[in-house]
């Protein structure tokens, strides 16, 4: 279904990426996922963000070298969060501006969510130009505002235009178009929009 906050997340990432190349911004992000709760540790989440910056290129050689060296040193054991955060903050500070998008925050384990928010706050303290885009269920908002008291909240609710476009798209793809008349079509759209406005 195309109307959830999650879809907004992917839309925002795309809209940022469209201009990222020309403006020398970096856009990094991650989709939190119930099914990956165990492997989505704070260390892995921050590591995934760092990896995206390194793969993207455009970071100073000595930082890239430190990243490679870290890989060798830690080997299979995996890095500590503090080491990773140090590296991530340095890399972000070396770039003009970094956009971080984390989607579906409510799907992290609750204690991880707080760690993730704290790590993001650390990054922002070091590089205040960083822009952070988060999506999640309304209850997550309290946690977000605990760490970012000036966070701007935008509620995502069903938008009648979006719904109308979506219903019409589905009707266009109907496998039995001969069973549809114009009147029926108009009725379907009208009734669905009425039901939604009563929610």
């Amino acid at each position: 279904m195309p109307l959830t906050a999650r879809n907004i997340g992917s839309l925002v990432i795309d809209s940022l990426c469209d201009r990222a190349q020309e403006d020398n911004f970096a856009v990094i992000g991650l989709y939190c996922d119930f099914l990956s709760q165990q492997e989505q540790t704070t260390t892995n989440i921050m590591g995934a963000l760092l990896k995206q910056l390194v793969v993207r290129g455009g970071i100073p050689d000595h930082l890239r070298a430190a990243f490679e060296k870290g890989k060798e040193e830690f080997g299979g054991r995996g890095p500590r969060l503090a080491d990773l955060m140090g590296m991530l903050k340095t890399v972000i500070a070396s770039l003009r501006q970094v956009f971080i998008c984390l989607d579906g925050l409510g799907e992290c384990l609750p204690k991880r969510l707080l760690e993730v928010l704290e790590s993001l706050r650390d990054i922002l303290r070091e590089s205040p130009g960083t822009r952070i885009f988060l999506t999640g269920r309304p209850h997550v908002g309290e946690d977000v505002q605990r760490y970012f008291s000036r966070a701007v909240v935008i509620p995502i609710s069903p938008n009648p235009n979006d719904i109308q476009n979506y219903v019409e798209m589905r009707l266009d793809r109907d496998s039995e178009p001969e069973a549809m008349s114009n009147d029926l079509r108009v009725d379907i759209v009208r009734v669905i929009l009425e039901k939604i406005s009563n929610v």
Partner: protein
Amino acid sequence: MCWHSPLEPSNRHQGARAGRFDGVGNWLLETSEFREWRYSEGGAGKAVLFCSGNPGVGKTYLR
């Protein structure tokens, strides 16, 4: 390249993008809140934008 993280966000992004319906949500990109967040380069004042919504928003009525 799996030292730093076993997560592969780009795969997930391709999936989310493929499931998206064109045009939906574009209103968000036009809001003043989004634009201020997007284009303000200084200070940490407008640094964090949080889009909040229930997981089933609209879903039940459109299946």
